[in-house]
């Protein structure tokens, strides 16, 4: 499935770019991320307690960063496995400075398998959007310092 959207962070582009490739910032912003450790050049191992409502599970995975062109572009691929199923995905991020803010345009493909893909298929898109929203809201809190982070501006 495709996930796409644009999110506004109230901080300059360089700060935003440096934040989203910093494992310590990411660990604080990714919902349920318990640990994010560097395992190599642009590679990280993650343990996430992910879930929505009563549906929860622990996922172990790796994240790979690619095509880094600071401060405007980078790509990541992620691979995670846990009790409720597995997730495989890749996403492209483009950052644009608009006045004092950064517009992050993201576009990704995600594959979900296992039990959540079977019985939970009807909720996967909503869960993915919710997780992305929480991540960007977390990033806004880290960087923007605004009391009310904006909701995503557009998600098709």
């Amino acid at each position, binding site marked *: 499935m495709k996930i796409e959207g644009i999110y506004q962070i109230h901080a300059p582009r360089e700060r935003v770019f440096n934040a989203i490739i910093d494992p310590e910032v990411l660990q604080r912003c990714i919902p349920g991320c318990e640990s994010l450790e560097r395992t190599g050049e642009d590679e990280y191992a993650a343990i996430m307690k992910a879930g*929505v*409502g*009563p*549906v*929860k*599970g622990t996922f172990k995975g790796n994240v790979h960063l690619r095509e880094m062109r600071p401060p405007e572009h980078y790509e990541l691929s992620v691979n995670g496995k846990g*009790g*409720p199923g597995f997730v495989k995905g890749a996403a492209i991020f483009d950052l644009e400075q608009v006045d004092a803010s950064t517009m992050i345009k993201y576009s990704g493909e995600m594959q979900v398998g296992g*039990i*959540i893909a079977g*019985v*939970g*298929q*009807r*909720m*996967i*898109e*909503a*869960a993915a*959007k*919710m997780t992305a929203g929480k991540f960007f809201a977390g990033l806004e809190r880290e960087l923007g310092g605004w009391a009310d982070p904006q909701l995503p501006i557009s*998600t098709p």
Partner: protein
Amino acid sequence: MIPAQFDYARANTLDEALNLLAQNEDAKILAGGHSLIPAMKLRLTQPPLLVDIGRIKDLSYIREEDGQIRIGAMTTHYQIESSDLLKAICPLLPECASHIGDMQVRNKGTIGGSLAHSDPAADWPAAILALNAELVAVSKNGERTIKADNFFVDLLTTALEPGEILREIRLNKNGTHQAYVKMPHPASGFAVVGVAANLIVNGSNECQSASIGITGVSSKAYRASAVESALNGASLNEGTIQGAAAHATDGEDVNGDLFASADYRRHLAEVFTRRAIQAAAIGAAK
């Protein structure tokens, strides 16, 4: 699959239930169990402790009190479906109940359990929103009343705090220009789209106010406020109803899945909103 190992405790009073919940932050309330147990059997959820509130006295009732309709959280869907009182004074509730799951589910499932679970395609949330109901939650700190408009927060997430138990659903008596229509998924029966319409219509067939609750479309049930604005003060005819229904998904993030793409769901929402308003406009208890 069978559930992961869990402990079971039966509470005899609400206080006991609250204390048991406080002892274990991952404990789950067991009401009718027809959303919870299937998820446990698939190991999608693995609560270490189930707190069974099924034997607590006076949590299951349907009554008129202080000018309101009050329904206990443990009232089953079947009890609501078959209530002569509700068929007379709030037909939306029995009509909505009749669409839930199947007979076996309706005999065990409870309105409180369904609302606390807040499945994005459940039927109750649409009706509760359309009826402007209030939900009474009890915790160790006392009781509070949550308006339906504030109750459904996100996917499978309500305004209930950890350690809170939903005790009662309350609503003011509305008219009887009400209807619930639904497009069920052919296998699961969940609402691909479900629309609850609650209208106040005067003698000249003018809509004085409208409340429309929609489920199955987004990550949670919502009030179709754009549809409501279009209906308020309008004379109810095919043209005005069609025009209002066209706004069914305005401003909403429409869900897509293997059965129905977002575009198809948007179209279904319009069609079923139109049908719900038409059915409600005819009005009167069935």
